[in-house]
């Protein structure tokens, strides 16, 4: 089963179209079921003018690929796509798009939820925001640990 899964894991430095990604993920399923997705966008809240995302290349893509494998092992998937922007973005730009296709709705939705919760521990991203002409690093937050704990109830 695992070999038939369509997988598309990418780090992009340019603007991407989440709809193309969601469509491609849904289209790759041989017998249609359902496709779930989540796309995160750069916020313009609190006067953010730009967002810069840096990462450590030797770990990032490897981490994202391992995450896709973990999702495929945990859920019954036909396709899984994880696309992440790096570099400088402006408000409204998509940062991340995760899409999953499955014969079972719950598996598709849960795989998206699982990948989003695990992205920060699987890949290493640091973000800083430009506000009023000054760059500010975005701090880690406790909720990320709680997000992860949801998947290991023991």
């Amino acid at each position, binding site marked *: 089963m695992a070999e038939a899964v369509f997988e598309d894991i990418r780090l992009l430095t340019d603007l991407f179209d989440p709809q193309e990604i969601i469509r491609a993920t849904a289209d790759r399923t041989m017998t249609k079921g359902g496709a779930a997705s989540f796309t995160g966008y750069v916020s313009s809240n609190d006067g953010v003018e730009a967002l810069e995302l*840096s990462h*450590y290349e*030797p*770990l990032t893509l*490897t981490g994202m690929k391992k995450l896709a494998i973990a999702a495929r092992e945990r859920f019954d998937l036909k396709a899984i796509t994880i696309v992440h922007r790096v570099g400088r973005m402006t408000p409204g730009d998509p940062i991340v798009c995760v899409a999953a296709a499955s014969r079972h709705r719950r598996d598709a939705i849960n795989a998206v939820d699982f990948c989003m919760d695990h992205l*920060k*521990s699987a890949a*290493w*991203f*640091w*973000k*800083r925001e430009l506000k009023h002409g000054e760059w500010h*690093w*975005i*701090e*880690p*937050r406790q*909720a*990320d640990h709680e997000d992860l704990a949801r998947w290991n109830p023991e």
Partner: protein
Amino acid sequence: MAVTILFLGPLRDKAGEDSRAVAAPLDWTGLIEAVGSEIARELADDRVNIACGGKVLSDKTTLNALDGDEVALLPPVSGG
């Protein structure tokens, strides 16, 4: 050749540079001495990880970087 220390995310600002080349081999004590007191304080934080040769160390004090290795200092990732 030498060992390259990479300062990532907010640590880059604190170090004032992207990377620094130091003599090989490099262990945990050598790293602490090489990075200066401000970065050394950051490294004492459990949430700051170290990768050597592209792998995150489960115990960063076991660092043993050889000639040509890249030692990446990984502060906690950003929230949101």
